[in-house]
């Protein structure tokens, strides 16, 4: 082991980054070589000096970085969700529009292709409210005399807020049942036909 080799490995020796055998050999050399020993001392001193440099405290806290992170996230976020959000709202408006159209048409029973075809299956309603105002005034222009049904069935709805679910495909949804007028008595409701239009009779219940 010569001085050149030792001096080339002195920093690693200082940092104890050599193998055990190499550390031993260099230590043995340093004990007998003044020149290499002096070199070792200065390099060890440099390491100590740098290590003892005081820790520098940042003049500002981490808030500046966190603020920049927040700004970065805001810049990045819309790009990531823009497509999804647009599509979702487009569907939502479509769903809302379809629901509105459905509610409008079903509430007035002006549709000639109404699924309610059999009088026997039409339930009657006893509503605590004067009128189920699904109909709009424009469609209530004329009324005809009541025509009793042959065998009305009774399936009273306790509360207009509760929408019963049909258990049978022949039992229509009460929401689709024609307009009911309550004139203050609790008599049986009689379904009637609005005969104002011969081609598309509007079915009505009257007392």
């Amino acid at each position, binding site marked *: 082991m010569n001085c050149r080799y030792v001096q080339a490995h002195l*920093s690693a020796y200082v940092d104890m980054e050599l193998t055990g055998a190499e550390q031993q050999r260099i230590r043995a050399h340093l004990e007998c070589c003044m020149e290499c020993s002096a070199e070792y001392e200065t*390099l060890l001193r440099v*390491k100590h000096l740098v290590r003892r440099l*005081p820790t520098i*405290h*940042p003049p500002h806290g981490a808030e500046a*970085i*966190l603020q920049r992170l927040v700004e970065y*996230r805001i810049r990045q976020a819309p790009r990531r969700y823009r497509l*999804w959000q647009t599509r979702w709202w487009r569907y939502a408006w479509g769903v809302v529009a379809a629901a509105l159209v459905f509610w409008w048409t079903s509430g007035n029973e002006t549709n000639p292709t109404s699924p309610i075809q059999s009088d026997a299956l039409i339930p009657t309603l006893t509503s605590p409210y004067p009128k189920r105002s699904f109909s709009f005034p424009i469609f209530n222009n004329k009324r005809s005399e009541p025509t009793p049904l042959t065998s009305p069935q009774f399936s009273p709805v306790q509360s207009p807020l509760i929408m019963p679910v049909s258990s049978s495909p022949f039992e229509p949804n009460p929401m689709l049942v024609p307009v009911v007028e309550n004139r203050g008595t609790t008599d049986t409701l009689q379904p009637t036909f609005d005969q104002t239009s011969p081609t598309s009779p509007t079915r009505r219940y009257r007392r």
Partner: protein
Amino acid sequence: MVYTAAAKHMEDEIHREFDELVRRHYRQAYNLAYRLTGNAADAEDLVQDAFLRAYRFFDRYDRSMPFMNWFSRILTNLYIDEYRRRGRLKTISLDEPLQTEEGEDGPATLDLPDPSPSPLEMAMDQEYIDAIHEGLQHLAPDFRTAVVLADIQGHSYEEIAEIMGTSIGTVRSRIHRGRKQLRDYLLKRHPELFERGDLK
């Protein structure tokens, strides 16, 4: 809706985790950046840029290794690549006389923030602290980075090799040459620092 809620929740978790890492390691990162760049303003910029870059590539962070090892790599790479490209690093030969812009002899003054030294660190005069700091700035960026990572950050050669993306042999060489240059710089200005028995 479900997808967004889950994604949002996950993203919030990552934000929280990263923000906590920023708070925990900000001081150490700033200290490293300060010793690399040599001044407070550049150090702050470097730390901010490095944390932003770390956030962008946070999905690549292997949580089994210490965050600071991974982050030091980002910070030093950013420093060596970007700052050298911008020409903000001036590597001055140790042989040429120190001159300020006005042409006067003597080292240029550096804006040192209040270091608030611990009682142990009080043993070293501010004059020496400044000299060592300036000496570090006169090293080549690669040498300075290796020395700072080893002696200030306390990393092993293996960690430094990983941080700097080099071999252990290169790290060993850089630290050795860096220390020797720093020693020569300090010997010229403050030979008393190397007197036996001092600063032990």
